[in-house]
Each structure stands twice: as C-alpha cells, then as structure tokens.
C-alpha cells in the first residue's frame, strides 16, 4: 500500500507539527526552572515526556483513521494526539493547566482525553491496551465498523495488561491494532535487558494475530503495515500488532540526565531524521513541489504557535474547581 500525494502531505503536516510542538515544549518547559531545576516550578510544572523522533508512529497510523476510531496512548502522547486531531489549543491549554484545557486543567500532559476524536491516554504503563479492546467491542456491539488503536512502548510489552488484552482481542476477533513504539529505552533499561525476545511482533503470533515489524522508523513502511491492519480490523477479521523501531531524541522525561545512554546515540538517530527522509521522498519520488511542502510546514508551525499563545493567555481555573467532575 503506497500513500497518495494527499496522504503524504497529511503525514508530513502531522509529523512537522508534532516535531515543532515538542521542540517548542522543550523550551517552554524550562521557563521558571532555571538556574536551579525544580520540577514543580515554572510555566509547565510536573513531568514532561516528549516524543520528538517518534512522529512516524503517529502519522503513519492515524492517516488511516476516522474521528470515530478510538486511540489510546501513553505517557508520551503529544505526537499521537496531534495526529488523531485533538484540538491543539485545548490540548496545550490543558498541558499549561488552564481553565480552557480539555479537562479544565485536571489532567495535564499525561492525561489528555478528547471525546470529539475518541482520544485518551494514561500514565500507567500497559493501561492503553484494555480500553482499546473495549472500544473495539463497543463498535462491534453497536454495529459500527470503527476500529481502535492502542499505543504502547516496548517496555509495556512486558506488562501483564498487554498480554491479557492481546489474547482477549484475538479471542473475540476485536477490531484493534496494537502499535508498539520501540524506542529502545524503558527509562534507563534497554530492550535487550527487559525483553526475552528480540522482536515483539513474534509475540503476536503467540496470541493468534498477525504481527509486523518495521525497522528504522520508516514512515512509508508504517503507512503500509497500518493500512493493512486497519483494513483487516474494519472488515471484521480481527486484531493485529505492529512493532516499530523508532527514535526518542529527548530523555525519558525532561530533566533526565540520560547517564545510561551512549553518548553519540542521539546524534546518529538525528542523522536519519524521519521527517527529512519523508520530505526527500515527497520531492524526489512523489513529485510534490518544494513550495507546497514549505507552505505545509509554515502552516503547521503557525498552528502550534497559535496554540501556545492561546494557552499562555488563558486563565487558570479557580482553586475550588478541583472539587468538580469527580463523579459524572
């Protein structure tokens, strides 16, 4: 399956937007945290997990999805939320803890939930899997052909919840696609020290579903594998698993000294930047004019800048609002 020109531009826009978003957030996150880093201080306090480098995993999958398809994501959610079409202003306001945020500031960066596009995420490793099964089940019971996509890290593939959800999805022939973003690191623990198999796609077979392994963060290969998996799910043929070897440019969390990471690793990954590779393909192989690509990039950046400005200008919630929405 190869992408059309429109799909190429869509993916490029999603990836460029996510990259610019993460790079902008990296700078904003440090506001108020210097000269001495204090995690609770500044414009965006708390933990921050950035996904620069992992954009293909979001764009190459979400290009095939509709707003009524459900996506569950992880503690590193921004690129997926962007690709899924979460309102960028409300998302950014939420990360800033403002009243205009998706949850009025209650959730923050690790808990972005948007029913408009059926997006949710969790800070607990492996907890994205079960709800994806549930969304798939709901689609079946309501006679819809929508699908569910669960994002997980390679570390989550060793958590019980993952294994249970895979078995359940296969057993009940649920329209789910499990996407593993293998960025090699579970905080400081490399995959070689956490996982008994070299490649999680072989586990798919053990659970009665097809598994695909995508090496080297290749957007076009992700597009192809995801297209097939989503088509299979929509046709009622059941779940699939896709494991993508991807890159994490930043630390596990912002402020992570990354003492565990080999010194030159990030530089080597950046030399194979997936957005640059896609751009090259678009120009050389797909004949898309450079001007159109530039315009797409500028529009993406403008949208991000607007979202950050909106977040900054928005008010904080009143303190007492903490007590609202505990119950439905």
């Amino acid at each position, binding site marked *: 399956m190869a992408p059309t020109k429109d799909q190429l531009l869509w993916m490029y826009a999603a990836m460029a937007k996510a990259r610019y978003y993460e790079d902008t957030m990296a700078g904003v996150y440090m506001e108020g945290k210097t000269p001495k880093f204090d995690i609770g201080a500044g414009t965006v306090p708390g933990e921050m997990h950035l996904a620069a480098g992992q954009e293909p995993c979001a764009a190459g999958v979400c290009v095939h999805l509709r707003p009524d398809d459900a996506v569950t994501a992880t503690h590193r959610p921004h690129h997926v939320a962007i690709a899924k079409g979460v309102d960028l202003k409300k998302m950014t306001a939420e990360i800033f803890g403002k009243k205009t945020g998706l949850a009025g500031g209650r959730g923050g960066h*690790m808990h972005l939930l948007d029913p408009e596009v059926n997006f949710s995420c969790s800070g607990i490793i492996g907890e994205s899997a079960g709800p994806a099964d549930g969304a798939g089940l709901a689609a079946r019971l309501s006679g819809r052909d929508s699908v569910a996509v669960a994002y997980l890290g390679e570390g989550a593939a060793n*958590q019980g919840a993952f294994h249970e959800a895979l078995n359940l999805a296969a057993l009940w022939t649920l329209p789910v696609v499990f996407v593993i973003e293998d960025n090699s690191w579970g905080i400081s623990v490399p995959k070689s020290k*956490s996982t008994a198999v070299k490649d999680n796609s072989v586990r798919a077979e053990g659970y009665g579903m097809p598994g695909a392994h995508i090496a080297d963060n290749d957007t076009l290969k992700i597009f192809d594998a995801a297209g097939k998996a989503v088509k299979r799910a929509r046709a009622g043929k059941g779940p699939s698993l896709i494991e993508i070897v991807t890159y994490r440019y930043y630390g596990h969390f912002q402020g992570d000294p990354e003492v565990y990471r080999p010194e030159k690793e990030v530089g080597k990954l950046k030399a194979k930047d997936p957005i640059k590779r896609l751009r090259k393909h678009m120009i050389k192989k797909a004949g898309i004019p450079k001007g159109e690509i530039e315009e797409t990039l500028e529009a993406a950046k403008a949208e991000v800048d607007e979202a950050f400005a909106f977040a900054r200008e928005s008010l904080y919630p009143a303190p007492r609002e903490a007590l609202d929405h505990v119950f439905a």
Partner: protein
Amino acid sequence: MDSNRILTVSRAMAEAIGQEMKRDKNVFVMGEDIGAYGGIFGATQGLLEEFGEERVRDTPISETAFIGAGVGAAMSGMRPIVELMFVDFFGVCMDAIYNLAAKNVYFSGGHFKVPMVLMTATGGGYSDAGQHSQTLHATFAHLPGLKVVAPSNAYDAKGLMTSAIRDDGPVLYMFHKGLQGLVWMASPEGAATPVPEESYTIPFGEAKVAREGKDVTIVTLSMMVHRALEAAGALAGEGVEAEVIDLRTLVPLDREAVLSSVAKTGRLVVVDEDYRSFGLTAEILATVVETDPGLLRAAPRRVAYPNIPIPYSRPMEQFALPDAAKIADAVRETLDLKKAA
C-alpha cells in the same frame, strides 16, 4: 568519624541497604531503574557499582511478576528488597502484595517467613497529576499482614530501613519523593539530618515527639511532619504551643503516644496527605474516642486530601494539598481562635 555528617533521605536509604547487603549475602535488590540509574528517587544510588548485577537487578516493567518473585524468593531463604517505583502503580500488582506477601506467614501458621521489603515512592505537590502523586497510606495500612513504615527524615529513614530488612515478615517502606533530597525536586530543610555511619535500627510502633507543646496535639507522618512543624512555628508566635507527633510507622501504630499526648493537651489535629475519608485520620480519631472521649476538650480536626483525583493544574492542586496554613487554621479552630486573615 564525622558525627555531624548530614545525609539526604535517599542517601540514608541507600546506605542502610548497602550495609545490610554487606552483612547478609541473602539480601538483594530488584526493581525498575534501580541499577545504573540508582533508582528514580535515589534509593539505590551506588549499589550496582558495589554489589554487581546479580544482587542489584533492573527488572522489566512487570510488577506482578517481580513482586511475586520477591515473595517467592523471600520464602526460599532470600531477603529481597523490591522497589515499586511509584505507589500509584500498585494497581497492576496488588495481588502479589496484599494476598501473597501479606498473608503467607499467616496461611502457613508462621512456618513460612516472608522477609521482603517493598519500598515505594509517595507524595505530590509538584504537579505530577492524578496517577503519580498519591500517598495511599490507608490503602496498605488497612489490609492485614503488612507492616507499613513512613519516615520523615534521614535519621529515621536509615534506622527504619535496617529494621525493615531484618524483619522476617513483609514490610512496606513508603518514602515521600519530596523528602528524598533529589537535585530536581525541592525538599524541606529538616529532611536531611545527621546520620550515624554505623548500622542501627529503629523499632516499629514507636512514634517520636518531633516538637513538645502543651496546647494542642498534631499527629502526622512523612512530609506532613515538616508542614506541621512549620505551622507550629507560626502558632508559637501567637502564643500557642503545639505538640507534633511523628508516627514513623502506621503498622504497628503507636496509639499510646497519641493518647498520652492528647491526655496532656486535650486538643487534637490529625494531618495526612492521603485521601481524607476512610483512612489514617479517622483511625487516630477513633483511637482517642473509643479509649476516652473525655480526653478531648474540643472537637478534633482533620487536615487531609479531599477525596478527589489529584488535579494537575497548580492552583487546584495547591487548594487540595494539606499545608502549614491549613494545619494552623485547624489548630485555631480547636482553640476557638480566629483563623488567619
């Protein structure tokens, strides 16, 4: 020997563990990022270098498996120290904790020992939101078979850790992130203290009087000891002398210390960073009331987290979080004094 050597809580914990590992080859550590990283909250700093990979094991993200394995190893002659990175993660592995670790001594009529320490990070106030900021004292204290300890300072941290490792049953060691003395998270001044270089133990079930006073008893533990002391400092300026009791351990609970203090002061404020309802604060009040309600000269007060998911946004989180101002106001209420403006 430098008797005034000051250690952070995380350093004191790591020192206790290291000394016990030297003393007893059956002691080993496992958990996520406890090896090269030294523990996300510094509890195992330096241990990998000293003891190697066999005894200081990074695990996959598989809490049910490795905590269950901790129970099994403990029942097979080892003395494992297992780290559950954030207490909030207990959801994925609670069975291994409350049904296995906590009950196997009982199920075997005392014939099996389960000398496992489960150490875990608690606490919020730095905007880590609803799944990374909880304290959950009551969740674990409520369930039978687990000892539960929560130090407020480095001296207690080392002694309680040593006692926990030497205990033949399962001990949940709850350390507050904001007390660890991490370079990336502020901690109160009283958390780091002088710590003796030699090994020592602190018995469970013995509270400490952190501050003497005659007008009101404030009972608390962990981070809230420091907030209570702050409140006591402010109140002293108003002529109110508060006594602060640092419980140090929840199970066993030093009820006698609470009762004798309340017998002296007649007024009680209980402080807990955990959710208010169905927890520690209620337990302390019940202890007083069911022993002798006549001890109280005024209605007691509780300062605890409201029963809401912990909000991310700073103004909302700070609204909910117990702090020195709220504690001081609660004290004033028991004395029928006007609250601070």
